[in-house]
């Protein structure tokens, strides 16, 4: 079982923008800037889309799940409609307990209040032989990288420099990477790396 961090980023590593709202899931980053490849050229990028959505379990941060902050004071079921693309258990990191939300198509959102290790443990139990994906956003993925818990990094690098936003790889310390697969398509560069932590972990 491999723990893979997957994320669509700009050439300057921005994974999402500041000032997220319900209307703007990526905040100040224009919605199409980092994900246009997925919507405008799905066939060309099908192997990577299949890989991103092929995990046995997912872990994501609360801001990736939704715009609600603090207590869960309203019904929120993610950005993805009644049938999210994950079709597997999704473990959402939060400080505020919430009952699991079962969606159509096999996706269930579970809410984990005791930290990133606990969420990964639960994802491990749920994933069976399949991979676990750390789905983002960048703050969550950086926490997993800094803790030495990520085996592979699967990036989709869009041809844009954004200049500001929340950056992947910020504060993760030193890492050595080994490319596994690099594939350019017309709208994005897919770059998959094995992560080597300096202490050999």
């Amino acid at each position, binding site marked *: 079982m491999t723990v893979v961090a997957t994320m669509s980023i700009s050439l300057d590593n921005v994974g999402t923008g500041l000032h997220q709202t319900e209307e703007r899931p990526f905040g100040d980053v224009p919605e199409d800037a980092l994900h246009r490849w997925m919507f405008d050229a799905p066939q060309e990028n099908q192997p990577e889309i299949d890989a991103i959505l092929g995990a046995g379990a997912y872990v994501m941060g609360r801001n990736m799940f939704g715009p609600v902050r603090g207590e869960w004071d309203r019904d929120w079921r993610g950005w993805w409609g009644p049938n999210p693309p994950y079709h597997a258990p999704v473990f959402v990191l939060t400080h505020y307990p919430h009952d699991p939300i079962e969606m159509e198509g096999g996706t269930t959102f579970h809410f984990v209040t005791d930290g990133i290790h606990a969420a990964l443990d639960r994802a491990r139990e749920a994933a069976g032989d399949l991979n676990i994906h750390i789905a983002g956003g960048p703050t969550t993925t950086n926490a997993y990288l800094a803790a030495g818990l990520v085996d592979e990094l699967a990036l989709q690098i869009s041809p844009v*420099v954004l*200049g500001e936003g929340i950056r992947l*790889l910020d504060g993760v*310390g030193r890492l050595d990477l080994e*490319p596994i697969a690099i594939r350019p398509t017309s709208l994005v560069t897919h770059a998959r790396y094995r992560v080597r932590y300096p202490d050999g972990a």
Partner: protein
Amino acid sequence: MLIYSATGSLDGYFAEPDGSFDFAFPDEELHTFVNEVHATIGTLLIGRRSYELMEPWDTMDIETADPAEAQFARQWRETDKVVYSSTLPEVTFPRTRLERTFDPDAVAELKASSDRDLGIGGPELAGAAFAAGLVDEVWTFLVPTVIGSGAPMFAGGHRIDLELIDQHRFGNGTVGMHYRVNGTRS
């Protein structure tokens, strides 16, 4: 055409906080490729720091250098250099002139009147060129390492819309990406 070419870490840094960039030293294969990328450049625009770092290329013994370094030194000596610095008293290298400020109009004129391409070195200077909409193409060489902090490859906080036109993967794990610049917004 004005080309910005930069080697950096996967987390987007051109140099360590102390200015060193040992992590980015190219091997023979990468150096040979970078030489080819730079071969179309007739005039190179650089800052004071680059000017000071580049001195060995003017003084080294080409006969005893390894082939990629010798080729780079030859190209360097055949390239006209414009150094931007408000503090350097003078420049002493051949084919080199000093400018006190980065004047976008003058660079646009130079670009229009040059038979060969212009290159720009260093993220700060490149940031000024991006801000003025003067950069036509970008080569980034991403080294497979995360260094955590330092000087970013893209300075100035501009949004730059690019289009991938070529890509190259090297034996040492570095990935080179060649982009056309479609627009810059501050």
